[in-house]
């Protein structure tokens, strides 16, 4: 419990165990991207507003730019690289592709994580629930309509006109 400027942490990311020494000042997003080379999660705004860095930490959706990497010690993390398997897209990712739910694609990793978190807890969300679930994710192409449609399709629902 003595304060330290760096410490060794052990994390499980997408089923792979890592042990690394990290500086206390390093944000989790930079640990994922720079130390583990998991560059799927993006840094959009760096101010906690855009949600492009969203990941699941012990199953809880959060923005990895608002957490120190040392705080993740002992946790299990899921990033966008953890969706799908064996090079195949999962149903949500496929729905994003089918419904043109990405334009520049920068917000997509965060959108996918937020939508995954929603569908895990609420398998048939209403349009309103989908919109509120992605409230913490900004798409600067403003492509929200197709993102909502993709989440509807992924949950086996009729897609809004």
């Amino acid at each position, binding site marked *: *419990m003595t304060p330290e400027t760096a410490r060794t942490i052990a994390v499980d990311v997408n089923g792979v165990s890592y042990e690394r020494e990290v500086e206390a000042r*390093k944000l989790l997003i930079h640990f994922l991207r720079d130390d583990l080379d998991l560059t799927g999660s993006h840094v959009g705004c*760096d101010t*906690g507003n855009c*949600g492009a860095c*969203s990941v699941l930490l012990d199953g809880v*959706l959060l*923005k990895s730019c608002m957490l*120190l990497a040392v705080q993740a010690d002992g946790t299990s993390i899921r990033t966008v690289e953890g969706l799908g398997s064996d090079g195949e897209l999962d149903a949500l990712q496929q729905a994003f592709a089918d419904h043109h739910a990405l334009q520049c694609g920068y917000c997509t990793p965060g959108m996918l994580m937020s939508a995954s978190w929603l569908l895990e807890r609420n398998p048939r969300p209403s349009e309103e629930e989908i919109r509120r679930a992605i*409230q913490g994710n900004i798409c600067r192409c403003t492509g929200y309509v197709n993102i909502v449609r993709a989440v509807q399709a992924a949950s086996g629902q009729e897609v809004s006109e």
Partner: protein
Amino acid sequence: MLLREVEYARPASVGDAVRLLAERDGARALAGGQTLVNVMKARAASPDVVVDLNGLEELKGIELGPDGTLEIGAMTTYTEIVESAEARARPILGEVCAQIADVQVRNRGTIGGNVCSNDPTNHLPPLVVALGGTMTIRGTGGERTVPAEEFFLGVYMTAAGPGELLTTVTIPAGKADGFASLPIGRDGTCIVNVAASLDGGAPRVVVGCVDAVPVLVRPESAEDDAVRGAVRAAGLQPPDDVHAPAEYRRHLAEVLAVRAVRAAKERAS
């Protein structure tokens, strides 16, 4: 963003946390981090040591007493309050927490962090004052309690001083509560917010975002005119900024106070 170099400590108990906070002038408690980490990025705060409270189970959870009193651990997240069956004993708590920012922030941000940061635009300072809450603060010398209306001292300043830690927010039984706000976009930062409670005598109407601390107003009755008049008589001097001139905030304070009290009345009946 690379933060300024900082030391990190993860105490094993509240006692250890308080000791660490008291030992070093530049030590800050790290709760959910949804404010602190951001102000560290902007260098608006540059603590030498962050004392991470996230592992402290004794600061988490909600207990409902037999008399309806809620004891909410300072490290309880907004999402936990929204989803807690116990917290429904005072439904306004979950309703307001569900309006804070977004899913990710609600999953991580805590009631203790919200009140201790005391940003004047935060949702919970006016709410805990309206509900007649009590704050339990632990220091190296022991524990003390402070009524919510005496807890907020200034912008970013509360009665939980250096070397101290808010451990519990206690909310008495009640249900005739209301909350009204004008946020910047849905669930955004509030331009003005008002919490009201009709439990326990004359209405407690508390206006946020208009001063350094929540402003408690006690109208004689819950009638619209009485509420509006009492808020006007409070002589609010809200800030002018890009979102609203002071005059508009004064107007909003009256309108939102009436709406909050009406909501409280509906729940009372």
